[in-house]
C-alpha cells in the first residue's frame, strides 16, 4: 500500500545524529510508583484547571482532581489512589524555574481505580463525546499538549478527507512513539478508528519515518487487520523519508498529502487533521476502557547507562526515572524533550507531565556549550533550512532590535521553534532563543493592551456615570425648590383669602385638638433620672436647664436666619 502513496517534500530541514538505538533495545517497562506524586494542575494549553480536592482527602486512581476551566482547557486526574497531602505551589517542569499549583498525593499502594465505564460515543452527540474527552484529560501527546477534544471537530463541512496519524517522531533521542507503535499498534489503530468516525474522515494515513522499520512493520500488520475487519482500505501506513522535522504537523501533512496549510488557516480548512499516535492510544483508553489520561510513555535517554522507555504516572519525579537508567556521574542537567526543541529543567525533582515525551539527561561532554555567538553574516543558510518557509535572518534582526511589529510581519508566529536555523547557523546564533523572546514579549504586550482597553472603557463609563449622577442630582434639587416655591405661593394665597370656609374651621379645630393632646402627653412624661435626687444634684440640674434656656435664646436669631 505504501508503495502506491505519492509523497511530497517540505522545504528545508536538517539531518542531525538520531541517537535512537540506545533506548529501543528494551521493551516498555512500567515505572514504579514513587513515594510522592506531584501533579501540576496546568498540564495543557488553555485555561488553568480548578483544583477539585483538598488536602487530607482520599483520592482514587483516575479521579478528577482538576476540573477544566471552560472548554479550552483539559481536566487532570489522580495517577494512583492515595491521600492528598497538599494542594500547593511546587516547582514546575518549565524553564522559568517558577512554581504553580500542584496536587501532592501520597500513594497508598493499593492502586485502586475509580468505577470505569466505557463511553458509547456512537450513541452520544459529538459535543458530548468532546466534553467527555475534555473531562478525561486527553491532550496531544506529541509534546504540544493541545486539548484533543478541540481538534476532534470536523469543521464547517462536517467531514474531513484525511486523518493523519503522526508517528514520524523526528527528534533525536526520543523513541516513545516508536516503541508504542511496536508494542501496541492494534490499540493505536482502535483509537484511530474512533477518531476517524468522529471526524468522518475518508482515509487514515499513518506517517512513520523510515528509520523505524520495526514500527512500520507492526503498524502495517495492524492496519491490514483493521482494513480487513472494516472491509475497506482506509488505513494506510506510509513510510516517510527521515529528515528533521518531518514530525511537525504541518510538515507531515505536506509530505503525505501535498497540502501546504497557509498562514492563518487550519489544516481542517483543507480537510486534514493530524494527531500523534500516542494521542490515538489515549483516546482509545478513555473511550473504550473509561480510563482518563494518567500516564504516558517516556523515553529516558542521553547520558545514562541504559536508556529505555518507561510507562510513567504523571507526577513521578524525573529524578526517579533517571535513577532507573544508571545515569553517568558527569550528568549535570535534565532536559524535557529532545536536544533540538527540548526545555532545560530547573531541577531533576520536577514531575513528569503530559508534555514529557522524553527525559534527556545531559552532560557537558554530550552537549558541549555552544561556541560564542558571532555576528550574522547574511549567508541565508537559515532560510534554506527553515521547514516553515520563513526568513529566519529577518526575524532574528527584528527580534534582536526589539522591533516586534516587523518580526510579526515576517510571520514570527508561524515559526515552530524546531531549531533548524540555529542548527545550521555558521555564526552559532541561538536564533530560537531570540524568537522565543520576541514571541513572549508580543504576547505580554497583547495582554497589556487588552487590560488597557478594559480600563479605558471602565474609566469612560465611570465619567459618564458621574456626569449622569450630577445631572440627576441637579434635576432633583430643581424639582424640590420648585415644589417649595409652589407651597409658599399657596400659603400666601391662603392668607390673602378674606374669610375661612367652615371646612377650614373644622380642620383648624382638629389640629388644635391634636396639639393639645400632644402637650398633655408631654407633661405627663417625666425623665426617670430626675427623681430621688440629692439637693446638690437638683441644683446642678437647674443650673444646666438655665444654661440650656440661655443657649436656646441665643440660637433663636440664627435659626430664624436659617429659615
Amino acid at each position: 500500500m505504501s508503495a502506491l502513496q505519492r509523497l511530497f517534500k517540505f522545504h528545508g530541514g536538517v539531518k542531525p545524529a538520531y541517537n535512537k538505538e540506545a533506548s529501543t533495545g528494551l521493551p516498555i517497562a512500567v515505572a514504579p510508583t514513587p513515594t510522592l506524586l506531584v501533579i501540576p494542575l496546568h498540564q495543557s494549553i488553555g485555561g488553568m484547571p480548578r483544583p477539585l480536592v483538598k488536602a487530607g482527602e482520599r483520592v482514587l486512581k483516575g479521579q478528577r482532581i482538576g476540573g477544566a476551566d471552560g472548554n479550552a482547557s483539559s481536566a487532570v486526574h489522580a495517577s494512583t489512589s492515595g491521600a492528598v497531602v497538599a494542594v500547593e505551589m511546587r516547582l514546575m517542569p518549565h524553564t522559568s524555574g517558577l512554581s504553580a499549583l500542584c496536587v501532592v498525593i501520597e500513594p497508598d499502594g493499593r492502586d485502586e481505580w475509580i468505577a470505569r465505564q466505557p463511553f458509547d460515543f456512537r450513541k452520544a452527540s459529538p459535543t458530548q463525546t468532546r466534553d467527555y474527552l475534555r473531562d478525561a484529560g486527553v491532550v496531544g501527546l506529541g509534546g504540544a499538549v493541545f486539548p484533543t477534544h478541540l481538534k476532534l471537530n470536523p469543521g464547517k463541512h462536517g467531514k474531513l478527507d484525511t486523518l493523519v496519524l503522526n508517528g514520524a517522531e523526528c527528534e533525536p533521542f526520543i523513541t516513545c512513539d516508536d516503541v508504542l507503535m511496536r508494542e501496541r499498534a492494534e490499540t493505536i489503530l482502535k483509537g484511530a478508528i474512533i477518531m476517524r468516525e468522529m471526524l468522518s474522515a475518508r482515509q487514515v494515513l499513518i506517517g512513520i519515518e523510515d528509520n523505524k522499520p520495526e514500527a512500520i512493520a507492526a503498524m502495517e500488520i495492524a492496519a491490514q487487520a483493521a482494513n480487513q475487519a472494516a472491509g475497506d482500505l482506509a488505513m494506510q501506513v506510509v513510510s516517510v523519508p527521515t529528515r528533521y522535522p518531518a514530525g511537525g504537523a504541518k510538515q507531515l501533512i505536506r509530505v503525505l498529502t501535498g497540502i501546504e496549510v497557509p498562514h492563518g488557516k487550519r489544516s481542517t480548512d483543507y480537510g486534514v487533521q493530524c494527531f500523534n499516535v500516542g494521542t490515538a492510544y489515549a483516546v482509545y483508553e478513555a473511550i473504550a476502557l473509561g480510563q482518563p489520561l494518567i500516564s504516558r510513555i517516556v523515553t529516558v535517554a542521553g547520558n545514562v547507562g541504559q536508556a529505555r522507555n518507561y510507562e510513567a504516572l504523571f507526577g513521578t519525579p524525573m529524578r526517579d526515572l533517571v535513577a532507573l537508567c544508571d545515569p553517568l556521574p558527569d550528568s549535570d542537567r535534565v532536559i524535557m524533550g529532545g536536544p533540538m526543541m527540548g526545555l532545560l529543567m530547573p531541577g531533576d525533582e520536577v514531575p513528569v507531565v503530559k508534555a514529557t515525551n522524553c527525559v534527556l539527561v545531559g552532560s557537558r561532554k554530550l552537549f558541549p556549550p555552544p561556541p560564542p555567538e558571532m555576528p550574522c553574516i547574511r549567508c541565508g543558510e537559515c532560510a534554506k533550512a527553515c521547514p516553515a518557509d520563513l526568513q529566519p535572518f529577518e526575524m532574528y534582526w527584528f527580534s534582536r532590535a526589539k522591533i516586534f511589529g516587523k518580526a510579526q510581519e515576517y510571520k514570527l508566529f508561524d515559526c515552530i521553534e524546531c531549531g533548524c536555523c540555529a542548527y545550521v547557523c555558521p555564526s552559532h546564533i541561538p536564533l530560537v532563543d531570540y524568537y522565543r523572546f520576541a514571541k513572549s514579549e508580543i504576547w505580554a504586550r497583547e495582554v497589556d493592551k487588552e487590560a488597557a482597553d478594559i480600563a479605558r472603557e471602565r474609566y469612560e463609563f465611570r465619567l459618564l456615570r458621574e456626569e449622569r449622577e450630577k445631572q440627576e442630582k441637579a434635576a432633583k434639587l430643581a424639582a424640590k425648590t420648585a415644589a417649595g416655591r409652589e407651597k409658599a405661593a399657596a400659603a400666601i394665597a391662603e392668607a390673602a383669602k378674606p374669610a375661612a370656609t367652615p371646612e377650614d374651621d373644622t380642620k383648624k379645630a382638629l389640629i388644635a385638638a391634636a396639639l393639645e393632646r400632644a402637650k398633655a402627653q408631654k407633661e405627663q412624661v417625666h425623665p426617670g433620672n430626675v427623681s430621688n435626687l440629692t439637693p446638690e444634684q437638683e441644683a446642678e440640674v437647674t443650673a444646666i436647664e438655665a444654661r440650656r434656656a440661655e443657649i436656646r435664646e441665643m440660637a433663636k436669631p440664627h435659626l430664624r436666619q436659617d429659615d
Partner: protein
Amino acid sequence: MLEAILVMAFGALVLGAALGYAAVRFRVEGDPLVEKIDAILPQTQCGQCGFPGCKPYAQAIAKGEAEINQCPPGGEEGIHKLADLLGREFKSLSAEHGIEKPKSVAVIDEQVCIGCTLCIQACPVDAIVGAAKQMHTVVAPLCTGCELCLPPCPVDCISMQSTGESVENWKWKYPVVKINPAQREST
C-alpha cells in the same frame, strides 16, 4: 472668452459642491491624533502626569501643552512610542512625575477595612466593590495599579502588591551574549 469663463465657473461650482458634500459625508468625528496617543498610554488613569486621566493627557499632548515624558506607568517604552508617533525627540521620564514601577495591584486588608467607601469613590475604573459599613475588596484583574485609593483610606488598610511572575506570564529573556565561554573553560 465668456464661454471659457462660464466653463471654468461651472467646473468650480461642481468641484465645490463635491468637496462640500465630502466634508459633510466623510466628517472625522473626534481627533484621530488624540485617539492614537490615547491608544499608546497605559490607561492606568493614575493622574501622575498632572492631568485627571489618560485621555486629558492625550489631548494635552496633541495640543502641544504637555511633554511626552510625564507618564511613569508607560515607562521609557511608552515615551519611545509617543516620540515615534509625534516625531518628537525622545526624553527620559521626567522625575517630578514619578518613577516607573513594576505592575502591581491594590490589596485591601479585609481585617482592618472599616467600610468607609472612600476608596470606592477614588477608584477610576470601579475596580473596588463594597458598600457602606461592609467590607471592601479589589477586583484584581480590573485594578490598574494607579494607587489613587491609597491616600483616602482612613485606616491605611490598602497596600500595593506586585503581581509577580507566574508560569503563565513568564517571558523568555533577551539572549545574552556570553563572551567566549568555550575558551574560558579550556583555560
